[in-house]
């Protein structure tokens, strides 16, 4: 692979030809803020936060769509660059509800992070503000288009990862809005509620309905695990607060990257459902009565032993589970073969 050599903030850097200035800077250890850039999505240069100064180039180019060239001199934090970024943030704030105190994304918001980083607490611009109604009529996703910074990541995630093209930009100029066709709510569109748009949204415009209402971002412990539904084996993080699973967020899964489907991302509510069995049950006179573990296990062991003794090992049969772990399936076939003395074990692989 051909290499190009350039200077970034005085540091000599060699990168593969075709690398963007943004990635070259990152490889050299310089961080550049960006809202719209994403390694999995096409490059659009929309938000302009990643502007840099390159002597000889007109204006400040967006580093995410500028290719690193031989001999290029790049400054990622020059006074002009910092000034431009502050202005961009001020312009965004001019039309952004400053309700961080109650926003579910507080603490996990790039707009907030960059405002902090660049010391932008308020805007000098005054003018019209959006007053869209919050869309919360589906049980999965809350859309607050007042918080949208029109970076277009959700549009690209829907088109380029999910392949559904449910949302796109509608209207023009200040009125530009990300919406399904005909500006209907998601629930009236063909949206499958994978939530992959939520996973890439840099602000509070798209939020997981339950998760963001139940926990502040810093209150949750995240535990990486594997999805309990189909056989794809997606990884995600269970978000835990006070001993309860309050939500699911994407992590970089081996199979799925950040992508999940509606069941993986929003189908966790069964874990703490009131119908969960919490005690062993023994049926007496046709009705279940709660029992202790010792009593229940003893009854099971006695009955299975009796049947084996009276009718032979072949009178016992076991259904293991495609929903349980490898360890549990192993142990149940061990119990069946070594203790019950039969190979009568199967599971629902055929169903």
């Amino acid at each position: 692979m051909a290499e190009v050599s350039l200077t970034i903030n005085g540091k000599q850097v060699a990168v593969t030809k075709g690398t963007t200035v943004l990635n070259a800077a990152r490889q050299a250890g310089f961080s550049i803020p960006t809202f719209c850039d994403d390694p999995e999505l096409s490059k659009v240069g929309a938000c302009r936060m990643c502007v840099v100064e390159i002597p000889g180039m007109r204006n400040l180019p967006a580093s995410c769509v500028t290719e690193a060239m031989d001999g290029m001199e790049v400054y990622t934090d020059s006074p002009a660059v910092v000034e431009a970024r502050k202005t961009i943030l001020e312009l965004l704030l001019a039309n952004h509800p400053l309700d961080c105190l109650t926003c579910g994304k507080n603490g996990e918001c790039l707009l907030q992070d960059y405002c902090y980083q660049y010391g932008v607490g308020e805007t000098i611009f005054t003018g019209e503000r959006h007053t869209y109604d919050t869309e919360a009529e589906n049980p999965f996703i809350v859309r607050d288009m007042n918080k949208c910074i029109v970076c277009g990541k959700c549009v690209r995630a829907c088109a380029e990862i999910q392949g559904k093209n449910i949302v796109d930009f509608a209207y023009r100029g200040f009125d530009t809005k990300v919406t399904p066709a005909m500006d209907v709510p998601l629930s009236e569109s063909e949206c499958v509620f994978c939530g992959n748009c939520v996973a890439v949204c840099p602000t509070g415009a798209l939020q997981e309905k339950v998760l963001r209402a139940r926990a502040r971002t810093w209150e949750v412990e995240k535990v990486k695990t594997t999805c309990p539904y189909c056989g794809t084996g997606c990884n995600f993080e269970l978000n835990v607060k006070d001993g309860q699973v309050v939500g699911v967020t994407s992590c970089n899964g081996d199979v799925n990257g950040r992508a999940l489907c509606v069941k993986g991302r929003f189908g966790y509510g069964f874990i703490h459902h009131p119908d969960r069995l919490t005690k062993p049950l023994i049926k007496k006179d046709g009705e279940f009565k709660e029992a202790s573990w010792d009593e229940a296990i003893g009854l099971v062991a006695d009955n299975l032993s009796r049947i084996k003794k009276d009718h032979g090992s072949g009178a016992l049969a076991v259904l293991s589970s495609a929903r349980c772990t490898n360890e549990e399936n192993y142990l149940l076939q061990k119990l069946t073969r070594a203790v019950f003395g039969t190979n009568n074990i199967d599971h629902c692989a055929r169903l």
Partner: protein
Amino acid sequence: MTNGIDEISGADFILAIGTNTTESHPIIGLQVKKALRKGAALAVADPRKTEVASLAQHHLQLKSGSDIALLNGLANVIINEDLYDREFVSGRTENFEALKESVAQYTPEYVQGITGVSAGVIREVARGYAGAKNGTILYTMGLTQHICGTHNVLAVANLAMLCGHIGKESSGVNPLRGQNNVQGACDMGALPNVFTGYQGVALDEARAKFAKAWDVAALAGEPGLTVGEMMDIAGKGVRGMYIMGENPVLSDPDGGHVVHALESLDFLVVQDIFLTETAALADVVLPAASFAEKDGTFTNSERRVQRVRKAVEPIGDAKADWEIIAGISTAMGYPMGYCSAEEIFDEIAALTPSYAGISYARLEEGGLQWPCPAPDHPGTTYLHKDKFVRGLGKFSPVEYIPPAEEPDQDYPLVLSTGRRHFHYHTGTMTQRTGALEEFYGEEYLEVNQNDAAKLDICDGDKVKVTSRRGSVKVQARVGDVVPEGMVFTSFHFPAVAINKLTNAQRDPVAKIPELKVCAVKVEKD
């Protein structure tokens, strides 16, 4: 799957047969869409107009249960037009002449008569698949849940070997597994004929190895009963059953028969996280921990072993399934003193060559695809690279047979069942999420508009669907998702327990029931 999931996007021809990929395996569906964006061709064989079918260049809307005829027809064209991979066939396979002879009668015109797929499309798909650099076949239960399910899979294997589309990256035969750990449950020997890693119970060596490891005098060598066979002799040969995390009352065919079978047992113990329709029939119900409350591993469709991690404590007095099993074993006089899931995994690795190189420590770095025979082995992304497990790949000639129950005057429609995007299996979990069931709260029956007109049924009407085994009431959705003569619904809703109607007739080899075809009548309720 012979390939890894991410390899699907590298295929330039995908034949998806009997898989509603984007609904049942949404994230695998993304790989199909990625392949399409890169210019791949897609052919979907499915009687229904699914989303993935709408993305395909060729939608082969075949008659339910006619898969062998279609697959043999594709092989017929590939052989007759000399499109097959001669080098692969001569170097890596055997029994080609027998295949050639058996598919000779399956000319595209003959196959059109059986399947309803036009001869021209059969030729085009055959040419596309054979001419691809990387051809991959995806399938699920639409192919396997037939009385000829095993033969359907053999016909798929014949096609892949004929074109040399196996044993390479992005080329292979890829059954998409429907449950999080169905691959693992099979790998772990939760099957009547094998120990872990498919070591046969009939093999003296394997029995001796496991008897020694488990410290028992001897192990039974006769393969046991499959689930359907257990139900057939429940209350007679089988007197006691232990069911862990399964709901056969709703998931198995001919649900009425299953209820009767379980009720006739002397003793039934069910271990689950909810009081399922099956658990309600038990003498003892044991409360288990959900996936979020325990450690362990799942093995996915591409043979990748991945960690499941405990995030919260078990609810109430529930316990991890492995702890409950160990408790029962100990109470029956065979002490199991495991302290952790990891300890059990180490025992599995020691007894299972394909898992031998996998450990919890390695899984911290990411999942590993078996076979992974040694601690320094990177795992295996695709199978059958230079040779098949048996050496040469054997072509198995198979003949089309019609489904066990075909429509007639009394039951004039074909009922097929499957999954919906927003729900899962018998709905035990997805009906209790506070979200999925709220959004998609009622099931419906897909009815073709021409049939609806004949039956005087309008969209949204309540209808009664009846087979020889049972009936359910459900709302009709009229349209063209199903072809004329067919109706479809899912088995996710206890209120629409569609498996009361399905046919328990089984494939003689794999013992899989014919859930995809039974004869029904539909009346306005």
